[in-house]
């Protein structure tokens, strides 16, 4: 067992790990942050997406020991300091961009990274950009609307504003 420390949502977190301990296990079991979910075992579904040093990463695909010392942000670190939703989270709520909520943390983290790289994406760019995140409930329609709204495009393309 090796003790690993990293910064999660601005706070130093340490836990004992094996070489095979995945980042998602470190977060869920070590840090007690159960907002990051595991939806598959082939790095396909994206429910475990978090930010590592600002990049969206599927946390089931990376060993905890490989990201020792990194800055990690999870869904628990996305809201404003006063607990209110950030504009992207608010857009998911406004647009009904979630149903069962299980893919939602990964979807929000992937969308946030998408918008950081491309602040005004087209509908096609959003759909392509979220291809690594599977949602079984929404048909993606309202997720795409939410990302459009979060990027300030509520009145374009006639979709987000309907």
């Amino acid at each position, binding site marked *: 067992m090796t003790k690993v420390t990293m910064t999660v949502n601005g706070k130093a977190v340490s836990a004992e790990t*094996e070489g*095979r301990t995945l980042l998602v296990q470190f977060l869920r079991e070590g840090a007690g*942050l*159960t*907002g*990051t*979910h*595991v*939806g*598959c*075992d*082939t790095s*396909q*579904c994206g*429910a475990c997406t978090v930010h590592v040093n600002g990049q969206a990463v599927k946390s089931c695909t990376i060993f905890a020991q490989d990201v020792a010392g990194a800055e990690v942000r*999870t*869904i*628990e670190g*996305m*809201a404003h300091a006063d*607990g209110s*939703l950030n504009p992207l*989270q608010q857009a*998911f*709520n*406004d647009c*009904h961009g*979630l*149903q*069962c*909520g*299980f*893919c*939602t*943390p990964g979807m*929000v983290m992937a969308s946030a990274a998408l918008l950081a790289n491309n602040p005004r994406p087209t*509908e*096609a760019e*959003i*759909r*392509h950009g*979220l*291809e690594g*995140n*599977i*949602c*079984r*409930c*929404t*048909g*993606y*329609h*309202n*997720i*795409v609307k939410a990302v459009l709204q979060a990027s300030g495009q509520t009145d374009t393309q006639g*979709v987000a504003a309907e």
Partner: protein
Amino acid sequence: MPKDEIANKGGIGASTKRREDLRFLTGKGRYTDDINIRGQLYAHFIRSEVAHGRIISIDASAAEAMPGVAKVFTSADFAQAGSIPCGWQVTDRHGKAMLEPKHPILAEGKVRHVGDPIAVVVAETLDQARDAAEAVVIEIEELPAVMDMKAAVAGGDLVHEELGSNLCFDWGFVEENKAAVEEAFAKAAHVTTLELVNNRLVANPMEPRVAVGDFEEWTGQHTLYTTSQNPHVIRLLMGAFVLSIPEHKLRVVAPDVGGGFGSKIFHYAEEAFVTKAAHILKRPVKWTSTRSEAFVTDAHGRDHVTKIQLALDAQNNFTALRTDTYANMGAYLSTFAPSVPTWLHGTLMAGNYKTPLIYVNVKAVFTNTVPVDAYRGAGRPEATFQLERLVDQAARELGVSPFDLRRQNFIQPDQFPYQTPVAVVYDTGNYQATLDKLVEMADVAGFEARAAESKSRGKLRGFGLAHYIEACGIAPSNLVGQLGARAGLYESASVRVNATGSITVFTGSHSHGQGHETTFAQVVSDMIGIDASQIEIVHGDTSNTPMGMGTYGSRSLAVGGSAMVKATNKIINKAKKIAAHLMEASEADIELKDGVFTVAGTDKSKTWVDVTLAAYVPHNYPLENLEPGLEETAFYDPSNFTYPAGAYGCEVEVDPETGKVEVVAFSAADDFGNVVNPMIVEGQVHGGLAQGIGQALLEHCVYDENGQLLSGSYMDYAMPRADDFPMFQVDHSCATPCTHNPLGVKGCGEAGAIGSPPAVINAVLDALHRGGFTHVTHIDMPASPSRVWAAMQR
């Protein structure tokens, strides 16, 4: 009421934003895998890697000596346990009960599908359990796998030797109509025939299944935390039939559930295992499914092979319909499996049409595959796909418009209530209206111009139409009992009004994404006139809700919501009595509006809180004829199914070079009756459409001839992704409210998955025919590029 006013009030008809979102969007949802109980052990299941085989020996001695291992379980540890029960018994066309095999918690003597559990290692950590599992030595004599349904029925190897046959049942419906149907076919001016497959699917809710068992020795209390759509049903099935635990000693909790789509209705072996193992080991035991495990343990859906025929007279009126279907049951009978290809399928074969004579034959077959059970729509998508493909094919053979052929044969608006020849009575509907709406929404008039534009880019554009009917809120209990259901299908609700006027509603319905916490509160808010924020919806725990049959078959609002309305009406009636006493008026003169009680014709009034406070602080109260307190329970058993219906239009572009199909537009005109929260209803349709389009173009559960699952992960099973869809156009304005439930609602959860597959395939066929590939009469789902391309070559 004007739209703005509805939205401000937050009652019925408002697109109220979901309250549950706040926890889900901040990582504070509480799913079953988020529950960890101090001292818990972890279970790892060792599963069959062959489809069919005899267990020769299991040697767990080395594994039991490994670090952290508490125990390795085999079937010998469950000798006293009952069979995992099937909840529905079908009687075949000769009056004989279906064949019903034993379904043990862990395999006894034989394994019958890849994934069948053989042994379980329980250890201090999951990694220790997995490591020890590799040291369990299991010897299995592999047997030939029973895979092809027609061959399985013809003879040969048996999935269950003790049953003597692989034919579970041979069902005929309506058996008395059989001769008349044959006669109608003999007299027909035209007969259209199709042979088609409804592809096997995996439900794939994004949250894999999880079960945590706990046992409290000093009270004898068992607790099971599980990913379930219906915790009370699990308590009933597991407690009464498998583990013999009485209800008062068994609590089943389903907290936030990450999607279900049917696959979390059923009682699974892992639930019984962790409950019993916790009892034996006197420590909590947790099992979390991997996705790979989910593919070989969660009940699959669909898997029908059908021949269907339509008889028409010289004026193109439908005169008779007959179908022959082989329905795959898999290796064991899952909870509702026998009902899916029978009562949830045969009763819908009339569709939206006045076909006078129908005969449906279904042969249900055991194979060495994962059990098959209800998946979003359950029987109704299978019925709709056959019928709507067939009607399109008939229109093509006759050279008439598929719109006109449908309109001509529709049950007309003035014919409701309508008795179909397949037992059910449709209460309301207006199929012409939904089709009119679709024609407008989908801009059918502009299609030719769009097709020409596609052609200029080398693409083949096609339009596909489908109309559907479904039966939701399966009921009533006395009828379904006659049809073979081994449970009632009512729902319960308790409404607890607290002293300061806030309300807690306990409902037997359960939400796994449908937003009940929001919509159910809207209904009660509307009835009483207090703000929805004062109303809390509680579900998912057998310890606080009287009884519940759960959420499936689009029944929650129609059945569970009706129970809640009934209980709320009892509350209002009692509250009026209290108000009458407080205002020294006659109860008959009391009115409740916007949370204020008034006496008709006077200026007297009492607020909601004045009355609720009096109920709990009864200083001035009619104690001689009214009990204090304000809490009521109601059970609601519907008198009929509800019958949502709608018209769906799909527009595709086919690339003739590759066979790739792209859905470029999809329109859905649904009749759901009254709608409580339009935003949520539209979201349900979007999700259903994605699953239906997924079935039509992408998803396919494939076994090889040895029973190995070839599509056992997201690397091989094509889950629909964001870039597989366009924006959907959905409408639910053509509403004909249900006549027999108090809200006039019909259910909206499954429609999208029912209506869309035939619309997509009809669109692909239309595109190919427009492109000159007129020899193609059908393409089985999924219409993958290789299948479409192969169909074009000849």
